[in-house]
């Protein structure tokens, strides 16, 4: 009854019920009768097909459900509620439970507070999050940690959350950080390992995004002169809002990377190509195929990956940070060079060695003048 057993084990495998022994046994049986493999492969493909969802129908079902709730006296809103509004939602049934009231009003207070902060922020037109921090004597109330080009740094915040700061980056936080709310402002790139504390959400403000965290580890790359802002989630869950679209929450899950285009990108050469890229995209974190290093966080080990779709101009920004050098392009065409998906990376290489490796992939000439690398044709 080998065949019967195969289907039995396959079922367990597909439903996620199989243990490791059963999986092994299935492998073995499949090797014994290779002809079934074709069927199994197709069933596995079939298995992954999702059932189609009629989105408009679901939405109208939701509307009908909400109005049904309203008929029964639940004050639920039809449209997406603003966060600050949810104080009015406790059902009359629960009114007699005092502790819940206390909890709800506490929540309300918290939400009101965050709404106020949010409101004040959304009014400063071009402002970075700094405006949300109260008080005029900004300097006195703030801690600032910054890293020079070519150096990295690790910071432990008062709540034990850890931030690794990449080169040429800056982290600002209030001296009272963590008393009520945990807020930091980031310019540049940082890897965050945030301590779990549902009572005090951890919020990161960048030029383009606000990121709300419960307890998680992730990487944020938001250099002012880069073309995009990237948020890569390693574990946990984060909620991201774009400053200019505060109503749209984007939830990121592990292994996902959110890339948002910075329209204010400075280097003209890159922006032409970049304009064709999507404004917002959710992608996957990239693993280095050989040893499984996560490319987005490789900088923590001082490693820089050459990605296939980056132009030399974009790569130069990364090289500037790693080596603490400036790059100048005397040739437009060279600045658009790409170095292919070789999966190469630089770690211990000197700047000369790195440039030499790049030359092999796509030839250009360069010379180094003090701390400036000048690239010619």
């Amino acid at each position, binding site marked *: 009854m080998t065949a019967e057993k195969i289907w039995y084990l396959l079922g367990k495998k597909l439903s996620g019920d199989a243990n490791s022994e059963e999986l092994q046994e299935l492998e073995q049986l499949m090797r014994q009768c290779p002809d079934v493999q074709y069927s199994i492969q197709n069933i596995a493909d079939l298995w992954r097909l999702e059932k189609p969802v009629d989105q408009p129908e679901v939405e109208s079902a939701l509307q009908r*459900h909400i109005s049904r709730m309203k008929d029964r006296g639940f004050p639920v809103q039809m449209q997406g509620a603003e966060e600050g509004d949810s104080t009015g939602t406790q059902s009359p049934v629960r009114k007699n439970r005092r502790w819940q009231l206390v909890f709800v009003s506490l929540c309300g207070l918290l939400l009101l507070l965050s709404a106020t902060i949010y409101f004040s922020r959304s009014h400063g037109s071009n402002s970075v999050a700094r405006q949300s921090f109260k008080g005029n004597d900004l300097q006195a109330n703030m801690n600032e940690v910054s890293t020079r080009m070519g150096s990295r740094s690790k910071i432990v915040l008062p709540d034990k959350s850890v931030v690794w700061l990449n080169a040429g980056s800056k982290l600002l936080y209030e001296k009272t950080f963590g008393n009520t709310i945990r807020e930091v402002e980031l310019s540049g790139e940082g890897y965050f390992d945030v301590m779990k504390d549902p009572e005090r959400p951890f919020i990161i403000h960048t030029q383009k995004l606000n990121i709300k965290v419960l307890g998680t580890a992730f990487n944020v790359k938001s250099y002012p002169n880069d073309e995009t802002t990237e948020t890569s989630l390693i574990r946990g869950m984060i909620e991201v809002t774009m400053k200019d679209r505060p109503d749209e929450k984007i939830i990121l899950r592990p292994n996902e990377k959110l890339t948002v285009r910075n329209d204010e990108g400075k280097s003209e050469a890159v922006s032409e190509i970049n304009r064709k890229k999507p404004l917002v995209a959710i992608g996957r974190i990239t693993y280095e195929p050989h040893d499984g290093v996560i490319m987005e966080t490789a900088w923590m080990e001082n490693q820089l990956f050459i990605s296939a779709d980056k132009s030399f101009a974009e790569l130069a920004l990364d090289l500037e940070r790693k080596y603490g050098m400036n790059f100048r392009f005397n040739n437009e065409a060279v600045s658009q060079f790409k170095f292919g998906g070789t999966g190469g990376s630089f770690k211990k290489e000197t700047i000369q060695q790195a440039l030499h490796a790049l030359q092999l992939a796509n030839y250009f000439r360069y010379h180094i003048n003090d701390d400036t690398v000048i690239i010619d044709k």
Partner: protein
Amino acid sequence: MQQINRHNYLYMCLTFEDSVHITTHDCIQMDKSIQVEDLKKRIALFDDQQAYRELFMVFSPSLQQFAFSILRSKQLAEEAVSDVFIKIWEKRSSLDTIDNLKFYLFASTRNTSLNYLKKQEGLRKINADDYWVELQSIYFDPEQLMLTAEMISRVMEAVNSLPPRCKLIFKLVKEEGLKYREVSELLDLSIKTVENQMTLALKKLGSAIGFDIYKSVSSTIRSQR
């Protein structure tokens, strides 16, 4: 729409030219349980209405189909699911104590639906054979599957010819991602039965796909024994 639901959001992203290479399926399926955990927490701790709406959006299609397979009326099925979600909102503060929210929703939908039936027809119990099942995900995109048109029709036929109970089990495992134990509790069947029915369903599918190949395999196996 104020807050984009994730599904739309991904769709939006994917419609951009040369967007990132992801399949919506991977993203949605893989992290669905994390998403549900997150929604549960937001509802339980913050009375988050947005999360509540999202939870409804995630589960109502599946639950409605499940309710429909008992009640066989679209309208009643929708009401039953609506009732389930009203209960969820009422007891939201204790939602956190429910370990397996998905299974809980399916079980509540079953109970509510059976109560509807009881009121209507005075029926007490419904046998798993009496469920009316329609498989939704057996839509074939020949581009996605390496199957010929002829084979596709054979697979469709095989799936549709499964006995009702077998089809129901197959649907719950494949389309709703339920575990064997969950299916057995939900339908009041033994795990053994669920296992056997799944084995049967896969065997039928496999032989529809493998066809002549499969025949020859089973004959060689027979000759080996």
